């Protein structure tokens, strides 16, 4: 086994352990913090896959900001999970069937690291070989994100904008006082 396989396996094992701990915990505070741990481990996996831009985002957004926002939400709603008295049979059946269907769906997918996978043969070679000439910047991720797929990124920014509008509409106090005084 080479070093990369060992790193991947240990990170994945830690991820699985984190999930089991997450499921068993009742304190929402601890759950929020553990989900930060989960995100940080995912960021490590992305680094191992050479996807440093994604890893960066996962560490900053998933482990950083999301944890803070979850803690803020817990401060509003309460620290303990309410234990439901419902029968557990139906949820377990739904989860098992959905999980089995998802795993069945992945059977068609190309193997991890397969060079002939469609994702590596469609537009990716063009981006990797031509983008330094067409766009002129070394980071291909930025070229794709901001130039080739600039319209998609605009959509993402609009999603974040909408999220903020939603939060402000639901929880925000109107800024009447500040505006009227001026």
């Amino acid at each position, binding site marked *: 086994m080479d070093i990369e396989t060992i790193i991947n396996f240990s990170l994945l094992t830690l991820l699985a352990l984190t999930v089991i701990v997450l499921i068993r915990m009742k304190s929402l505070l601890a759950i929020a913090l553990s989900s930060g741990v989960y995100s940080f481990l995912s960021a490590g996996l992305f680094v191992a896959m050479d996807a*440093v*831009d994604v*890893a*960066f*985002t996962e560490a*900053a*957004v998933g482990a*950083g*900001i999301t944890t*803070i*926002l979850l*803690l*803020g*939400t817990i*401060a*509003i709603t309460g620290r303990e999970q309410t234990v439901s008295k419902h029968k557990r049979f139906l949820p377990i059946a739904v989860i098992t069937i959905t999980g089995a269907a998802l795993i069945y769906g992945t059977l068609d997918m190309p193997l991890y690291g397969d060079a002939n996978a469609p994702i590596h043969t469609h537009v990716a070679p063009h981006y990797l070989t031509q983008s330094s000439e*067409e*766009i*002129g*910047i*070394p*980071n291909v*991720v*930025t*070229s794709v*994100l*901001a*130039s080739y797929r*600039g*319209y998609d*990124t*605009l959509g*993402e*920014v*609009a999603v*974040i*904008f909408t*999220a*903020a509008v939603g*939060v*402000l509409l639901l*929880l*925000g*106090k109107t*800024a009447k006082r*500040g*505006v009227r005084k001026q």
Partner: protein
Amino acid sequence: MNLRSSLILREVCRLVIPAVMLFALYVQFHGEYGPGGGFQAGVIFAAAVILYALVYGRQKAQRILPTETVRYFIAAGVLLYTGVGVATMLLGGNFLDYDVLLQGHQQAQHLGIFLIELGVGITVGTVMIAIFYTLDEFCE
């Protein structure tokens, strides 16, 4: 949500927060050469402001960066992004086709990417700050 009592925390944050903000600017303007870009830079900048608000109190953070200012900047980032798109259309190109912005092809791409990444950074950063302010205000 405040941790104002700890002297060590306050003094450490006094050292760390400027460095985090500088790093956010580095990630923002160096995104074309290294990992990162507007999304990451915005989040890192917001993290610095949120850390300041957690340690010194939200009211103190809001004296520097008031809620209204933050709200204006949320829209300003999206406007800058779409503005670049509209500008390219007015100059005769397609929506977000940066080539018409400047004479040189690569220079035009650079300018376009710089502007839209700036728009992304402004919106993402201020959205995170606004959501944090809102949650913290709601707690009171």
